[in-house]
């Protein structure tokens, strides 16, 4: 357990170090992509719990990201001025659930406070994950993969075909998310450093929560389900409930990332809901070694950063397709568990955690 907090501390130091280095080398523009990479990492962390520990594949997690992002975007951009005399709007205003701001042209916009929108987004995500999860998680193998893929495509088609969601253009002009007075999620240049830290603090907290969970009674039960489902069942583990709760938890991670990234980017488009995004998340989880929080985080941060900086050029999707194939052909245990990497770790005198759980 001490190892867990040591690793978290090291991660925190690393996050600070990166920021300081960008400051010194005058490359603070990297922070924008590092912030985005952090939010994408959040999706991948949740998916790692689902795939690596509960053993359930999801090819529809971009759908949950989109549910979070789009809910928040719609609720915080929908102008309530025309309805401001309506009783319900007045009640909400008096409870502080609304905020007034100006749009680009100085027009008045009255909309739901981002906090309320965030909570509603999570509530909707939980509801959808629950309703979808109950039947979907009864399926196995190809059926589960296709069902989750199907869910993802449905969400994609809905956001692409519905005027409320901006169809192909998506939703723009999403306001900043004031978390606390003085702290807000926004893409404003002056807020770059602050937002880098907001994003990574969220990731660090998420890592800590997941490591705790994996090391707990629940994590043990999840690994048992993954390893021998019938035996876990015979030990009194309600396997269906555990899978469902894990599915919902990972959906909430994805939706949270969707909400924050949408406020950071000031908008969201249908590509965030596309199948390719879902596949990309799966690719990164696989590259990280399926059941390794640290592996997933490393791969998520590195690959997303490279992709966002445009290093893969027009071959972006191809790179992730190739990653999937190469990993599954040659290193189904993940890149970090290849013999070569083990030797490198030994050379660096970095003591790898024992066992296959990847968390110490």
């Amino acid at each position, binding site marked *: 357990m001490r190892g867990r907090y040591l690793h978290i501390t090291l991660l925190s130091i690393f996050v600070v170090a990166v920021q300081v280095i960008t400051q010194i080398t005058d490359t603070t523009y990297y922070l924008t992509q590092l912030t985005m990479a952090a939010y994408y990492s959040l999706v991948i962390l949740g998916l790692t719990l689902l795939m690596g520990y509960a053993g359930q594949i999801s090819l529809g997690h971009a759908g949950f990201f989109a549910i979070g992002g789009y809910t928040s975007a719609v609720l915080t951009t929908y102008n309530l001025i025309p309805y401001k005399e309506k009783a319900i709007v007045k009640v909400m205003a008096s409870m502080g659930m609304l905020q007034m701001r100006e749009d680009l042209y100085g027009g008045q916009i009255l909309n739901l406070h981002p906090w309320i929108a965030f909570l509603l987004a999570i509530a909707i995500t939980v509801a959808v994950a629950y309703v979808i999860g109950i039947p979907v998680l009864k399926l196995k193998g190809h059926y589960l993969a296709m069902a989750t893929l199907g869910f993802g495509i449905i969400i994609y088609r809905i956001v692409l075909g519905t005027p409320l969601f901006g169809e192909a253009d998506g939703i723009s002009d999403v306001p900043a998310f004031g978390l606390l007075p003085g702290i807000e999620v926004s893409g404003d240049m002056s807020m770059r450093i602050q937002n880098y830290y907001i994003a990574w603090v969220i990731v660090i907290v998420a890592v800590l929560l997941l490591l705790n*969970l994996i090391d707990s*009674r629940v994590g043990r039960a999840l690994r048992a389900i993954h*390893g*021998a489902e019938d035996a876990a069942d015979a030990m009194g*583990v309600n396997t269906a409930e555990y899978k469902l709760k894990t599915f919902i938890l990972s959906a909430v991670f994805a939706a949270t990332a969707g909400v924050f990234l949408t406020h950071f980017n000031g908008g969201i488009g249908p590509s965030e809901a596309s199948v390719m995004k879902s596949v990309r998340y799966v690719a990164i989880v696989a590259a990280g070694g399926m059941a390794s929080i640290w592996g997933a985080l490393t791969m998520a941060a590195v690959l997303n950063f490279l992709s966002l900086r445009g290093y893969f050029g027009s071959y972006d999707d191809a790179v992730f397709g190739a990653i999937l194939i190469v990993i599954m052909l040659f290193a189904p245990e993940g890149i970090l568990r290849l013999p070569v990497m083990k030797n490198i770790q030994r050379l660096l005198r970095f003591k790898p955690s024992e*066992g296959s759980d990847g968390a110490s």
Partner: protein
Amino acid sequence: MVLLDVKGLSKSFGGLKAVSNVSFTVREGIIKAVIGPNGAGKTTLFNLISGVLKPDSGKIIFKNEEIQGLEPFQIAHRGVSRTFQHLRLFPGMTVLENVMMGRHIHSRSGFFAGMLNMPWTRREEKGVRQKTFEILEIIGIADLADKEAVSLAYGQQRIVELARALALEPKLMLLDEPAAGLNMRETADIARLITKIRDMGVTVLIVEHDMSLVMNISDEIVVLSYGEKIAEDVPLAIQKNEEVIRVYLGEDDA
């Protein structure tokens, strides 16, 4: 007192009657064995009692409560644990962790408590660990606690499964061919452990091929043939039962 009461249990697959109108009772505190030639329906009977299969008709009454049709995990919660004929230990987990899974129903921590690592969940985990160690001591495998369970020798894995089933603190333990694949010395070890478990107050229902094991440790025996019960008695009487000799011993050399 009757702990388990099986009444008129039937189950068919397609046209085949795997278990046909089988009734018997298991009194508290004894070792009862179910024997019969291959295809007699022993494993099906076992899967019915543990909830893996749902019966077509009949009742299974455990502690005065009907449990037929419940899910396996619900039956475990009522105090029935089991081992598997083909070992089903959790890969990637140590012996300690495997046996800790037996304590699952005796602990509470859920997703939120686990994520937040609450002080009470830490205390609970400590308690689980302690209790598990006690069980490993009782079974005599405390020295294996940190070994990966599935990397152990076959005989040791059987014992770990037994420990895991015991950790659940069941009222009734179902053992599915616990001596399958074991040599004579290992079989004797298992027999001693099963008797020890019975003496701790756990009722044991065992399906087994090994006749000598069954005759040595069982208090009562049920004999199945082609899905039907043909005899139920104490071991000595079963050995003399002509029909049993005809259907069972005629086929098996035991």
